[in-house]
């Protein structure tokens, strides 16, 4: 008697890569716009980025149906917060809410690999990176999704600060300017597109700074 195997999976992976970089007074959040299933492309124009609050932007890769449900859930919770507190949620507050929401489904997880980017209460850039069940950490930069294994080592090479054990204490946020960071993101996506079949078509870049939110697009290889 062999054990019965599942003949159906509730999950699918729609691919794609997400990146976020925190700067001194800005945050860059980027994701490609390709949505795929298996070896097929479903669409070349799907946004994986969602603005949760004025200062908190979420980029998620994985199973987009779960991601859509997760985004709707967070948006509803944010509305309740605004009614109760008469103000928008801060990025660190949204980070904790996202973590709790993910862990709530610890035993039937959201198949979502998230990167949350935004500005903290001092106006400095902040990036939070997650696993599927809500474990999170504030970092200076992060990549998630199908191209993350290609992107992360490159970001480490360009952005990684020296050991936190060294004194004087170094900030995790990059000293790069906003334009340099955007350029780095574009470079990173072009490279990932070369070797990751699930990343390509276009990259959507969202830049959050004191002036507000700005969006840029750049074409990528479509093969």
């Amino acid at each position: 008697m062999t054990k019965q195997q599942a003949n159906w999976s509730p999950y699918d992976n729609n691919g794609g890569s997400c990146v976020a970089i925190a700067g001194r007074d800005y945050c860059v959040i980027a994701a490609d716009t390709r949505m795929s299933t298996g070896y097929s492309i479903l669409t070349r124009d799907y946004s994986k980025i969602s603005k949760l609050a004025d200062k908190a932007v979420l980029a998620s890769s994985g199973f987009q149906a779960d991601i859509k449900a997760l985004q709707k859930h967070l948006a509803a919770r944010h509305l309740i917060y605004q009614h109760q507190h008469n103000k928008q949620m801060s990025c660190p507050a949204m980070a904790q809410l996202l973590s709790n929401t993910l862990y709530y489904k610890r035993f039937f997880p959201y198949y979502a690999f998230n990167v949350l980017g935004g500005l903290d209460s001092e106006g400095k850039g902040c990036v939070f990176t997650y696993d599927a069940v809500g474990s999170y950490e504030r970092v200076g930069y992060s990549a998630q999704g199908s191209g993350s294994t290609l992107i992360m080592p490159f970001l480490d090479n360009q952005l990684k600060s020296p050991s936190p054990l060294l004194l004087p204490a170094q900030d995790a946020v990059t000293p790069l300017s906003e334009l340099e960071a955007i350029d780095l993101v574009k470079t990173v996506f072009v490279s990932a597109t070369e070797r990751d079949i699930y990343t390509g078509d276009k990259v959507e870049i969202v830049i959050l700074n004191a002036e507000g939110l700005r969006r840029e697009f750049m074409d990528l290889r479509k093969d």
Partner: protein
Amino acid sequence: MFRNQYDTDVTTWSPAGRLFQVEYAMEAVKQGSAAIGLRSRTHVVLACVNKANNELSSHQKKIFKVDDHIGVAIAGLTADGRVLSRYMRSECINHAFTYESPLPVGRLVVQLADKAQVCTQRSWKRPYGVGLLVAGLDESGAHLYYNCPSGNYFEYQAFAIGSRSQAAKTYLERRFEKFMDSSRDDLVKDALIAIRETLQGERLTSNICTVAVVGVGEPFHILDQNTVQQLIDAFEIVAEEEPPAAEAGDAADQETAAGEGAPAEEGAAPMDI
């Protein structure tokens, strides 16, 4: 209202076929400070009088944003009003989550009315002691509803509730036929004048009233104090009834009386929540 042997329980009918507890709850609405609403084809305006218990305390919040397209003004037991506002917000959020579209106002008021009715038919509950003026916009246009503690609701072109609301109602009755085609600004002006009617001669300043607007292309929001004061100053003519002050000569002056009144009251401005 007389006390009698049929008014102890909300579940006891009187021989005349009345539920006295429900009627007593409506009395509570009449005791609250005034709230008025009026609407045109494209906009709805809510305004209310904010009376603080004493100079030291802040005034009660009587206008609540329920969603981008719905707001509510309350009169009566404001605690009950707060709870019902929370319910309304929750219903709007849940509807938008499921249907990706705003909850139509007519549906919301029915849900609210049904909730109020439950409290008129349970021996362990009491009716909500608050009247709600629900202002909202949906696909079928701009709406103003009034929800009673009894569980009844009606749609209105313009309405006023709370203490001394009859004065406002009289003013609105004279003018309501023009409201449908009024501009947004005229509607706000009419709202402020209606509020002034309930003050029985007391000076109207932005400190003691709150105004909120919702309309086509304009999400529900409460107007800030400065804007309201400017609107009041624009239509406020010479103060006819000066308070009998010791300096008879100065008090008899023109617009300067209005100018002097505002700075003096700024010190006692209620706290913003």
